[in-house]
């Protein structure tokens, strides 16, 4: 870590001051994530002066009846760690022992939470594509699920907006609108609609709904007068002080503060959990997002991250320093699996299957998974079907992310050339896959894949990396844990991340362009670390794997042909260093955009060829599919 900029490792000095021991003497940290179904505890421990992951404990979340107290689930998860490690963390009355004494207790404790559906927000602004869009990004960045975005110009009549606001029952509202000194009338118009709708908080009718105002600073007195009594109002800096600038940080911080003060404090068992935790409780996706940011900071590169869960798919991008999160609330691998079917369509899922499956059988399989979400594939066929669904969930998740990760609309573009302006209009998103250096995935399906190549190919097929891209995934689910920990101790969090969490799957080399099948499009010349050389001319339509171990590198010269671009420009040679991984270096000359044959026989042949090349599934089964 010595070669890294020291600014990455800024500790939270306030936290350090509150420590019972000097930081150097800390030895054990417990971090929990109170998920919507499972509470996951992770114990981290200092071993020979180095922070490492030690053990996991998991237990059902107890936010619902009959327990209605999240502490029970946290205690059960921690007890599992105690049993597995033979180390006492809880006192007899079930409290975390802090400060640590010689042979029991922990030095530090923190948590994330998404129990009860996580933080659910409504955002509002004046113009749909400007202030409302910025408010949406701020809420998402704070880890919220955005239930609706209301704008003055969103074409819904007043009564429809009012009905929607009354029915939503969010945890919090973020209201933006107007640049500083800009429109007051339109900001007040949307504020009056919200006030008249009088929305009620989800977690009870007896307390005021939190509302963050991050709009035109000149209307603050009027906003206070209008909603100050009805809502728990928090006023922060304008999210769009001028059209050319988006300032989401003050709104994000206010959301986290109100999440603790108003939302979490009304959830059953949370007041006690808040007492246990040495840091503010963060929404789970906020923790996951921080972990992704940590990767980007340490590597100093553009990162695209994804959390493919049972209910939702979160996509994170850190592109040229800008962090954006999107959540596809109903794209997931269990609870929401039927929604992937609805959004992607049957054909798009079936196109990833190397065997025949009736559409109605596919529908029944996925609907049965939806109603019994904790079941796991027993047959290889059902595993391959789930991998097919995962590709589509990931593809749609990224598609959605690109609609959030957009350039600021409304900003002046007067100095741009005409050509540039055309490009600007055509490509609203700034995410350029050629400039994404790392793709990192997390989530049950990816981490439970029996062969790592399965998750690498799912990510590759869905995200279609371009040029040279490293692919990571987590070994044990702990990104939210390390994310929240990184807010206080980034160096400790990274050490654990690097050693015990991140699995380097490998590097994907994918030239951009299209050609006829069989046409030679790329020459690869690789100097391997053992002194050998790998050289090959690859044809269009291939995908191959060159073994290269994790933490090893190889020098490679890539010579694209036929206008193909591998990062240096069309037909330009690229000389670079590639990193290995548990899968190795994967050279993907199937073209970008990737197309899968529509004819069943051709598709089957192509898929089996690709799967065999990466040794994706058991050889015998793949031979059976060929018959």
């Amino acid at each position, binding site marked *: 870590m010595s070669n890294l900029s020291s600014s990455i490792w800024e500790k939270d000095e306030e936290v350090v001051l509150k420590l019972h021991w000097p930081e150097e003497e800390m030895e054990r940290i417990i971090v929990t994530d109170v998920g919507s179904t499972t509470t996951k505890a992770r114990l981290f421990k200092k071993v020979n002066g180095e922070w490492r992951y030690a053990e996991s404990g998991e237990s059902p979340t107890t936010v619902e009846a009959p327990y209605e107290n999240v502490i029970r689930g946290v205690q059960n998860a921690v007890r599992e760690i105690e049993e597995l490690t033979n180390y006492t963390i809880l006192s007899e009355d079930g409290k975390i022992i802090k400060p640590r004494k010689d042979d029991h207790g922990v030095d530090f404790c923190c948590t994330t939470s998404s129990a009860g559906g996580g933080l659910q927000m409504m955002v509002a602004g004046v113009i749909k594509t400007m202030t409302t869009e910025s408010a949406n990004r701020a809420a998402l960045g704070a880890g919220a699920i955005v239930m609706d975005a209301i704008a003055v110009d969103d074409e819904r009549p007043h009564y429809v907006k009012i009905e929607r606001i009354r029915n939503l029952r969010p945890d919090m509202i973020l209201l933006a609108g107007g640049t500083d000194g800009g429109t007051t009338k339109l900001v007040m118009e949307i504020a009056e609609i919200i006030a008249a709708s009088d929305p009620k908080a989800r977690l009870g009718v007896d307390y005021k709904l939190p509302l963050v105002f991050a709009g035109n600073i000149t209307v603050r007195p009027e906003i206070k007068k209008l909603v100050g009594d009805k809502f728990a109002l928090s006023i922060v800096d304008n999210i769009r002080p001028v059209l050319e600038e988006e300032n989401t940080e003050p709104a994000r911080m206010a959301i986290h503060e109100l999440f603790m003060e108003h939302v979490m404090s009304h959830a059953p068992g949370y007041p006690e959990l808040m007492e246990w935790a040495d840091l503010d409780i963060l929404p789970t996706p906020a923790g996951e997002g921080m972990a992704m940011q940590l990767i980007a900071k340490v590597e100093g590169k553009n990162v695209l991250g994804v959390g493919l869960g049972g209910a939702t798919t979160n996509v994170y991008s850190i592109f040229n320093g800008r962090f954006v999160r999107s959540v596809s609330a*109903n794209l997931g691998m269990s609870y929401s699996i039927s929604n992937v079917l609805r959004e992607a369509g049957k054909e798009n899922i079936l196109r990833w299957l190397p065997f025949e499956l009736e559409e109605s059988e596919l529908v029944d399989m996925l609907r049965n998974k939806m109603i019994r979400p904790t079941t796991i594939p027993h047959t290889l066929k059902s595993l391959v079907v789930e991998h097919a669904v995962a590709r589509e969930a990931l593809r749609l998740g990224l598609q959605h992310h690109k609609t959030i990760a957009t350039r600021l609309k409304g900003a002046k573009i007067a100095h741009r050339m005409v050509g540039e302006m055309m490009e600007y209009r055509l490509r609203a998103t700034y995410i350029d896959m050629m400039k994404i250096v790392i793709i990192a995935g997390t989530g049950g399906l990816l981490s439970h894949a029996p062969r790592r190549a399965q998750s690498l190919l799912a990510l590759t097929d869905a995200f279609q990396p371009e040029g040279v891209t490293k692919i990571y995934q987590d070994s044990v689910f702990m990104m939210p844990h390390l994310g929240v920990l990184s807010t206080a101790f980034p160096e400790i969090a990274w050490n654990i991340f690097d050693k015990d969490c991140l699995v380097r799957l490998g590097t994907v080399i994918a030239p951009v362009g299209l050609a006829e099948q069989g046409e030679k499009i790329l020459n690869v010349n690789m100097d391997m670390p053992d002194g050998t050389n790998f050289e090959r001319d690859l044809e269009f339509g291939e995908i191959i794997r060159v073994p290269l171990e994790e933490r090893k590198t190889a020098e490679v010269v890539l010579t694209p042909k036929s206008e193909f671009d591998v990062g240096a420009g069309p037909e330009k040679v690229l000389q670079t260093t590639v990193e290995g991984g548990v899968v190795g270096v994967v050279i993907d000359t199937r073209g970008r955009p990737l197309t899968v044959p529509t004819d069943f026989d051709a598709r089957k042949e192509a898929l089996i060829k690709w799967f065999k090349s990466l040794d994706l599934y058991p050889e015998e089964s793949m031979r059976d599919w060929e018959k």
Partner: protein
Amino acid sequence: MTAEETEKVSAEEAYAYTPGLKVKKAIEVLRTRMLPIPGEVLVKKKEDVDFDTKVARAEVPGMPSIIRVNEVINIAPEEVKNFMVKNVGDRVEEGEIIAKYTPFWGLIKRFAKAPSTGIIEAISDITGQVVIREPPIPVDITAFISGKVVEVISERGVVIETPSAFIQGIFGIGGEKHGKLSLVVESNEEIVTADRIETKHKGKIIVGGSLVTLEAYKKAEELGVNGIIVGGIKGVDLKEILGYEMGVAITGHEDINTTLVVTEGFGKMNMSIRTFNLLKDFSGYDAAINGATQIRAGVIRPEIIIPQEKYPIESSDESLERGMRPGTPVRIIREPYFGKIGIVVSLPVHLQKIETESDVRVLEVKLEEGNVVVPRANVEIIEE
């Protein structure tokens, strides 16, 4: 077995606890019926209530309707107050003039009329908007089940208790309904086809076997059948019934007349024999059903409640609390043995490799055709 081993095995067994859907012949069912906001409770403690008895009422604040008065009479927003003929707190009728602007000695006349009946709640001099609050909307809560009021929650609702047979489904659509149970098949394996549904089934809850066809469901809805309880339904038919492709399993508010409760899953699936026999036993009884399903956090399964005094109340099944062990009856809930019922033979402690090459916790189950090994995540306990 040493004490340590016993402890380890019991921990494994606790892990293996997979709750099944409840199928009970006679239990005390308690249902809390709550208003969304405070209101008035209409029944007293110990009072007997029927399925349709209204037990509580509240008045939800009316909808606000907003009119841009400044734009209607073409004045500046800050001038609106000067031209209002009605003020905050005044009651207005729909179409009544609330503001008028008559410059040039009345040569130009512009009026703003109330878009709805209600009370003027706010007049904004920044936007020129006027908010009219419509009259409150009464919301009634019915008992849903017949039984006795055992608790009154002041201003919020009641708790009703009834000795009942109780069955949970796996998935449903449509809301609360009640009617007499009527079997339209002879066995749990038979398919409910359209020809089995007749006019005499109007207002009833019909019970089928392994599948209800799309035509049968449509006919039932047309004839005014209140509900259908069946083992399975084809996933592709669901779209036809709802008119849209369902994404997530949060149901209960569909705009359909015939509530559907599926007990096993999607596709043709024999209704569990225990469920079928129980429904058969109570044929002709009044039953309350609700298709509402929520699979995410705070799981809600569809339910069938049959108030009855035929059988004495069963004591709670302690074996369930102990989890799964050799001898526990289970149902396999995923292919390749989906729907098969068997008895747990053993619960190996160590992870085992299955066909997918995943290392998972498994159990050995004795089926009619022999013993099989399946992931523990893919079975559920049959509550007996």
